[in-house]
């Protein structure tokens, strides 16, 4: 199809009111009858479906431009109204104008000198402080004007004008006709209305009252043919039919000299129809309905609200070549792959250009057709004719396929796709993945990429798009692939890393495990590593892990427990691998590899270490059980003493409080001081118990291993399971009384003791007593409520921030500027450091020197 490009730039836009003259000028015909079609079903000349207004039927030609369906965009018509009608949307402007001008001479009720003065003032105001200030000033002037009772020009007395909603004006008891209003408006001098912020060149006051009405082209109100051959007209056509009919009747009555009452009734009816034609939701008038009682959707409703033109059609565009289903995990695919069901693969296509060199391949695709994978769904002949491949056409299309055609083939393994999960809060929410067709009906993704998408598998759905041309594919391939997004621009840390079991596996492996040569090779084989060094008879875990690293890789880092982790020449010499080296967001080892070897190698190490961790766990076995929280008698005793001691301290505090011997903290009452002191003491219990457990628990306790490696949980969780849950707090204080002076009716009034205020002595293992359970439920529900309320709030907060900052970017000269090129920051971040290439926002000079020296 031929396309026209317009190389022009919009300089400015003027909003004004359509003048009767302009309406006539843009109209191509006058509409005189409400009839739509004649007996043959052909549009009537001068009717609402006149083919001068554009065509909506195939085969017909537009009488105005000669275009066929889809070529002709449609043309306006007009009708002459028998009497002026108020445009409902200008009702406020009309009221303002009526109240601020003289009823006799139509001048603005201001002295000439004052008018000059205000004009100068307004001009100055606009120039210096902007349009908003000007508007405010105009409003002030208006309010003052409305109070005037005498015209300074002709000295006529003014009568208060009231608006009787929705569209009648009254001067005392007398109703103003639109004719009168219009004639008043016509007399207002141009200069006077400028004070009211109206530019007379584009909006004369009398234009707010319609004398002729534009009829929109049929193309914006097409009729549809129902299955039974009957025609069903658009809501707008119905409404316009009413208007034309009533208008016609009004004309006839006026010409026949009908009594005033009849004319006025018809006039009002016309006013009603035109008002609902413009806006069918005006209050105080009944909305126009279909015969079925359904509301008509007229002009205003087409534009506004969520289903309107803007939010639905212009902002909310939809696309083809996309798919959406539930996601599920598959740690066996690579991080830059996405598993898609066969059904999806057969539906989504890529246009493949047929050339001499791939003719055979393309013929094969066409031969397979739409149902055999991998086949093709369409053939585009000569760049215009799109032909579906069906059993009937298949043979012919196959034989006629020639270079220059385009085959829309199924997507196959290795094709580029764009994968997305809403809300798309940062750029890692949309990444390019390679297609991998898998059995099943869900999208499969490597669990390591759940973090950037913020996805989980409890029913989340994700969208997949297939880029349709070389440029888009290349761009996605180079800029958007998962491995290029490992480092986040937020703070330079890695968004993807090993998680959960995989971290535990690597921790165990590098901490104490060793395997026989055969086992080691088997494990490496399982995760798909074929190149590894010559192993000795027994292979330590560190040696096994080293097989994943690049041969010349040097690394100095720290593990989660602050031991040094040293890698030299691609060999892990000391230290254990855990969350701090390969985990999400603080995997220093992964980051170092990304920096020195690039995204591909980093993605490989990430995928392989993820698999290795799981493979090791499969080999070794790993479980967490009730046994983990067993404690020896001596430890139990120790913990009991800690709790008892603390209770004693609290008792002492309460005693001193009652004896008034407690010293109040600055700015706090005595009671507040007591609460703070008690809470501090009781919170300490949990920490003390935690450290006792930490010291006593075996390193090989699975729960401890998970906590130490950073896979899941911490020592405090274990302490709560094994020893003591501790103080429950609501809003930073112990649980306060809900009954009179007590928390629960089992306690005495004014009981301040730990157990009466939500201290839980038991552990999850020993079980809670009913009172403790109740306190636990209180804090549990509070935190649940808190998260449920905070998530949408903070989400909206973030959205507003992101929208406000969206067009701010760093320019080539390192300045941060907005869309107007106004400078926001003279050097990005005031130090010009690109965060994603730094070490958490800092430049690590030491390691750079080391690198350069080490050479």
């Amino acid at each position, binding site marked *: 199809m031929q396309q026209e490009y317009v190389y022009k730039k919009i300089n400015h836009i003027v909003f004004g009111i359509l003048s009767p003259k302009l309406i006539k000028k843009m109209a191509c015909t006058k509409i005189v009858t409400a009839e739509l079609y004649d007996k043959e079903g052909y549009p009537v000349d001068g009717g609402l479906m006149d083919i001068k207004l554009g065509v909506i039927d195939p085969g017909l030609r537009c009488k105005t431009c000669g275009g066929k369906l889809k070529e002709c965009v449609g043309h306006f018509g007009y009708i002459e109204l028998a009497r002026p009608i108020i445009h409902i949307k200008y009702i406020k402007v009309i009221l303002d104008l009526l109240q601020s001008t003289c009823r006799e001479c139509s001048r603005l009720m201001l002295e000439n000198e004052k008018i000059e003065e205000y004009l100068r003032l307004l001009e100055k105001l606009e120039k210096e402080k902007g349009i908003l200030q000007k508007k405010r000033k105009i409003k002030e002037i208006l309010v003052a004007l409305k109070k005037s009772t005498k015209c300074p020009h002709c000295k006529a007395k003014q009568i208060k004008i009231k608006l009787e909603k929705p569209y009648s004006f009254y001067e005392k008891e007398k109703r103003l006709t639109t004719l009168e209003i219009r004639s008043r408006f016509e007399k207002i001098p141009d200069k006077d209305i400028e004070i009211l912020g109206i530019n007379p060149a584009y909006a004369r006051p009398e234009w707010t009252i319609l004398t002729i009405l534009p009829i929109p082209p049929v193309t914006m109100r097409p009729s549809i043919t129902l299955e039974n051959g009957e025609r069903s007209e658009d809501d707008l056509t119905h409404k316009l039919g009413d208007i034309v009919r009533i208008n016609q009747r009004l004309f006839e009555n006026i010409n026949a000299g009908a009594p005033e009452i009849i004319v006025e009734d018809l006039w009002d009816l016309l006013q009603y129809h035109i008002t609902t034609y413009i806006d069918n939701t005006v209050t105080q008038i009944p909305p126009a309905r279909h015969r079925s009682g359904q509301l008509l959707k007229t002009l205003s409703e087409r534009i506004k609200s969520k289903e309107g033109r803007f939010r639905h059609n212009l902002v909310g565009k939809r696309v083809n070549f996309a798919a959406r289903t539930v996601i599920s995990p598959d740690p066996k695919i690579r991080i830059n792959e996405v598993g898609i069901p066969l059904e999806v693969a057969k539906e989504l296509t890529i246009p493949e250009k047929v050339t001499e060199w791939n003719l055979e391949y393309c013929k094969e695709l066409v031969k397979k057709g739409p149902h055999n994978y991998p086949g093709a769904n369409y053939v585009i002949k000569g760049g215009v004719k799109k032909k579906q491949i069906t059993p009937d056409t298949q043979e012919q299309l196959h034989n006629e396929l020639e270079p220059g055609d385009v085959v829309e083939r199924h997507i196959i393994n290795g094709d580029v796709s764009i994968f997305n999960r809403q809300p798309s809060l940062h750029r890692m929410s949309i990444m390019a993945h390679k297609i991998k067709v898998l059995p099943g009906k869900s999208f499969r993704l490597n669990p390591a990429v759940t973090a950037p998408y913020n996805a989980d598998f409890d029913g989340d759905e994700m969208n997949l798009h297939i880029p349709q041309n070389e440029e888009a594919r290349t761009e996605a391939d180079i800029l958007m692939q998962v491995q290029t997004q490992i480092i986040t621009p937020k703070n330079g840390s890695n968004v993807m890393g090993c998680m959960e079991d995989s971290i535990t596996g690597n921790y165990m492996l590098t901490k104490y495990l060793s395997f026989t040569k055969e086992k080691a090779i088997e494990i490496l084989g399982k995760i798909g590593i074929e190149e590894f060094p010559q192993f000795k008879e027994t292979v330590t875990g560190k040696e096994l892990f080293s097989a994943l690293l690049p041969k010349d890789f040097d690394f100095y880092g720290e593990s989660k427990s602050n031991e040094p982790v040293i890698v030299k020449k691609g060999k892990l010499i000391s230290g254990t691998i855990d969350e701090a080296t390969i985990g999400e967001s603080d995997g220093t080892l992964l980051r170092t590899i990304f920096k020195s070897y690039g995204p591909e190698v980093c993605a490989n190490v990430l995928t392989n270490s993820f698999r290795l961790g799981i493979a090791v766990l499969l080999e070794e076995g790993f479980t967490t059980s009730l046994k983990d929280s067993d404690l020896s008698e001596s430890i139990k005793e120790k913990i009991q003493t800690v709790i008892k001691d603390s209770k004693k301290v609290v008792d002492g505090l309460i005693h001193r409080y009652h004896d008034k011997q407690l010293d109040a903290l600055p700015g706090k009452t005595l009671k507040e001081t007591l609460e703070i002191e008690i809470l501090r003491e009781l919170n300490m219990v949990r920490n003390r118990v935690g450290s006792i457990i930490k010291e006593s628990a075996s390193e090989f306790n699975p729960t401890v291993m998970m906590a130490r490696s950073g896979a899941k949980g911490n020592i405090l969780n274990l302490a709560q399971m094994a020893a003591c849950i501790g103080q429950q707090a609501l809003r930073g204080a112990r649980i306060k009384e809900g009954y009179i002076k007590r928390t629960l009716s089992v306690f005495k009034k004014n009981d301040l003791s730990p157990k009466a205020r939500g201290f839980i002595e038991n552990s999850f293992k020993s079980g809670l007593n009913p009172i403790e359970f109740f306190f636990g439920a209180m804090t549990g529900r509070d935190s649940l409520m808190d998260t449920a309320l905070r998530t949408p709030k903070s989400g909206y907060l973030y959205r507003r921030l992101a929208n406000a900052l969206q067009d701010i970017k760093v320019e080539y000269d390192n300045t941060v500027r907005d869309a*107007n090129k*106004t400078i926001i920051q003279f050097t990005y971040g005031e*130090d010009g450091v690109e965060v994603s290439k730094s070490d958490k926002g800092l430049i690590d000079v030491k390691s750079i020197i080391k690198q350069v020296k080490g050479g």
Partner: protein
Amino acid sequence: MEKTTTDKFDQPDHMFVPKHMLLSEEEENELLVKYNISKKQLPCILVTDPAIKRLNPKIGDIIKIIRNSQTSPNSPYYRVVISGK
């Protein structure tokens, strides 16, 4: 309201107020050429701002501010003086 506290307490001398200074015409031109901008595209500051009161700025002057930012010591910032009210 109008109490003269200036004798006892000068805001511009306070340790938390970064150093403000006026640019000469030459420096102004240099700056505008360096960033390839007009004065409108600079961030602005009110003439009435207490921090620049002592400099007696005119509307359209450019003020250089040297801040001790979190990320780098002595980062310069420029603002153009605009009229208040």
